[in-house]
């Protein structure tokens, strides 16, 4: 066993903040000056008191976010910039039982894809079967809810593509740090047109074998969109961390450090992880927004 093993003593020597700083912002800012844009839209009426989605409000939110991201006023025009009528479009959803991608969201995306000229039979929506059903697609829309995840810190858009792999468990080592590698698979690479990270009812702390506890879910009533899966996850992470601070009254570290987000930039060049290089555009309802 080498004497160079990193131990608790080494961490005691250097404060955690210093260690993290050594690994990320300034260095990255110099080496990768790339920036990313993320749009956050919220609406206080998107959910009723029972948590049911108001579909019209949801569509308004999606339209507002996508038009802002693409930079055109008309939502259908915006979707036409994302996909071509000739595309075979895969919507990578998420079926995790306690907090799935809602059907209403899938339907809103389907509608806008069809409005943009994609034929219904050329739209595929799947999660667990993505490796076979979505692999032939020429364009992908990546959509899922943000939540804490026991193994990777948070579950977001980067992680959502793990179902394109033959053996998801092989990505578990080191807090799933290599998740971004999935995005280099031929079934995925270069195909993603939009990342939608849902924050309608995020989970900010989990327990038990299903990592679920309804006490730690709240109605944030928002969604993030971006071309950049790393940037959108970085914003999702900030939201989760802010909620944990608010709820627990202090910084309670995630069960697993979400290093896969930083590694997605540093090791794989997938996108921007440093919040200082992410332009967050906030639309709609501002109450308890938690992030600036």
């Amino acid at each position, binding site marked *: *066993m*080498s*004497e160079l*093993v*990193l*131990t*608790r*003593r080494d*961490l*005691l*020597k250097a404060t955690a903040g210093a260690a993290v700083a050594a690994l990320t912002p300034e260095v990255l800012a110099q080496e990768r000056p790339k920036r990313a844009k993320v749009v956050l839209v919220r609406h206080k009426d998107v959910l009723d008191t029972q948590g049911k989605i108001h579909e019209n409000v949801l569509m308004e939110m999606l339209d507002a976010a996508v038009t802002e991201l693409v930079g055109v006023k008309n939502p259908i025009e915006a979707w036409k910039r994302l996909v071509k009528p000739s595309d075979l479009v895969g919507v990578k959803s998420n079926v*995790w039982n*306690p907090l799935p991608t809602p059907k209403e969201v899938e339907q809103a995306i389907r509608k806008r894809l069809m409005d943009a000229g994609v034929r219904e039979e050329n739209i595929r929506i799947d999660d667990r079967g993505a490796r076979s059903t979505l692999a032939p697609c020429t364009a992908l829309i990546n959509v899922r809810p943000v939540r804490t*995840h*026991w*193994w*990777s810190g948070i579950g977001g858009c980067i992680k959502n593509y793990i179902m394109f792999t033959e053996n*998801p*468990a092989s990505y*578990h080592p080191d807090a*799933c740090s290599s998740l971004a590698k999935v995005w280099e698979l031929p079934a995925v690479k270069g195909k993603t047109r939009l990342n939608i990270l849902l924050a309608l009812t995020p989970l900010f702390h989990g*327990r*038990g*074998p*299903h*990592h*679920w*506890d*309804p*006490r*730690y879910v709240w109605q944030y009533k928002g969604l993030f969109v971006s071309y950049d899966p790393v940037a959108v996850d970085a914003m999702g992470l900030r939201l989760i961390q802010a909620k944990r601070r608010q709820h627990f009254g202090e910084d309670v570290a995630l*069960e697993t450090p979400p290093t896969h987000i930083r590694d997605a930039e540093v090791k794989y060049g997938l996108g921007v992880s440093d919040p200082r290089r992410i332009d967050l555009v906030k639309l709609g309802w501002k109450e308890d927004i938690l992030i600036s």
Partner: protein
Amino acid sequence: MWLLGCVITLMMANVQGQPSELPFSVPREVNGWQWHGKCDTYDSQTIFDYIDGIGEIYRAYNMRRVWACRYEKADSPTLTLDIFDMGTAEDAFGIFSFERDGEDAGIGQGSDYGGGMLRFWKDRYFVVITAQEESNEARNAILQLGRQLAAGIPRTGKPPELLQFLPAEGLQRERILFFRHPMILNRHFFVAEKDILNLSPKTEGVLATYLSGKAKVRLMLVRYPAEADAVRAWNTFSQAYLREGRQKGVVQTENKKWTAARRQGRTLAIVFDAPSQRQAQQMLQSLRITQQEVSR
């Protein structure tokens, strides 16, 4: 003979209609929630199909199988029952000790309830009952189901023997962690990025927390299959962690607290974060390790 054959066939049919694969009896109904007689089952290879990456935790405790069953009632949240066969009572206790949160529910050999989730262990089984949404009605049903399940497990299991070695004074009993895998240990108390304790599925480890005034002192015991394994662990731990204190078995660490370690036979004991050198060494002396254990 024919009649006997029919009786046997009927008995078999009945068993198959019942939870034939389940390790013990599961109620069909509790407070109006119905179980429809089928459970999904997963082993240590297929566990990820059911609970994603968290499956790694169960594998780190040598999980054999899980049965996932659902109880449903109109206009009420579904209850999910997960029965984990951990192979041994030590590992059932271990997975229970990994994540304690909630109030003691007095079920099985150890339990807690909070947020619509009951967790308990008994014998080699770890059982979790979860409601998608919590309500008083769901809570009552969960606790009732838990009590019935615990009663249906015929035997009790022996908790990890290492627990007996822990000194009682100042021990936070509800915070004891049993572990075998460095990943589990590091989740609770980061020791090193690599396994410097020579852990394996056959080692048994206990991490206990003691309060000494305001100070929080950790005592770790690891018992190895053979003394040679413990010697190897001592060598790697003392080299990587004790460093300048290796010869004496005690060192003041960078937080101005003290770490001391000692090997006795196939058991390695380590005290972390004691306020003084004397306290660290006293804690090692107070371990209730028998001579029989040392020479075993």
